[in-house]
């Protein structure tokens, strides 16, 4: 085996071809791991026979310019808004009140998982109070019946949006971000 390798590596032409093969494999591997978006005529929804499909913008064209993420649309939408990549309209009707609330809610009944810190600010920049209150969530602390991870995974509560339009529920630590101490009490947030 060793003498075969030595003879192989001494053969210059073979070395060159080995380099070409490895380079091709490397490029192919990076193309697979780098995020990409399906174009509209490749997905399972759009009818490629529709003559107007060529007029619709492909996701890659717009989304590749936004801060990347590993999941969902592969865009970090909160960052895109905060850093000014996008400036989506807040309202159409001039009389609509914009209500942004900066208030964190600590949800402690998460078994042994780190506790959930729900930030109103990032949500109210996109959503109105009535989108969640009172139909999905009660405003009163602890008053929402049936709020548990099973229901969330089925598309209720947080799962109404997370898993549908906002980042999916495979990203546990984005919500479960407050570690528990040995006694179970939350670590103090500075």
């Amino acid at each position, binding site marked *: 085996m060793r003498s075969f390798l030595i003879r192989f590596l001494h053969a210059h032409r073979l070395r060159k071809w080995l380099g070409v093969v490895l380079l091709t494999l490397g490029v192919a591997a990076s193309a697979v791991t780098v995020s990409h*978006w399906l174009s509209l005529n490749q997905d399972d*929804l759009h009818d490629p026979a529709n003559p*107007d499909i060529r007029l619709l913008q492909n996701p890659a064209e717009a989304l590749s310019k936004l801060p990347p993420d590993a999941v969902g649309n592969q865009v970090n939408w909160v960052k895109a808004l905060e850093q000014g990549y996008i400036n989506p309209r807040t309202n159409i009707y001039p009389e*609509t009140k914009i209500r942004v609330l900066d208030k964190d809610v600590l949800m402690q009944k998460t078994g042994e998982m780190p506790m959930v810190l729900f930030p109103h600010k990032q949500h109210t920049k996109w959503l*109105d109070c009535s989108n969640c209150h009172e139909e999905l969530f009660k405003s009163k602390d602890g008053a929402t019946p049936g709020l548990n991870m099973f229901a969330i995974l089925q598309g209720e509560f947080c*799962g109404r949006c997370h898993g549908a339009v906002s980042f999916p529920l495979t990203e546990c630590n984005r919500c479960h971000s407050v570690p528990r101490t040995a006694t179970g009490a939350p670590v103090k947030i500075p």
Partner: protein
Amino acid sequence: MILLMLLAPLPLRAEYGDVVLNKRAEKEGMRPVIFPHWFHRIRFRCKVCHFELGFKMRAGANDVLMSEIIDGKFCGMCHNDRIAWGPDRCDLCHSGKPGLKSGIYGGHSTGGPGKW
């Protein structure tokens, strides 16, 4: 049981957040409508459609009629040939493959709410 699960259809590939509206489109001889959330998120916050325009945040819960759109309600608030293309450009919205069921579809890492 496991064999039955193997027969289950694979989730349809779409861009994350794509909504198919096919309550009556195909019955009336049109392609199902595909609504892409990503394109609209760049331009509007959630509250514009889901608070001001009255769209419910549940695929299949909205009953949108073409007559309402032409009247300027729902999609027609913007798709009126002034802000965005008008309701006469049928194929730009009615762009789905035949047989699609109404619902919100996933893409990268999830097939939609409740589907993993």
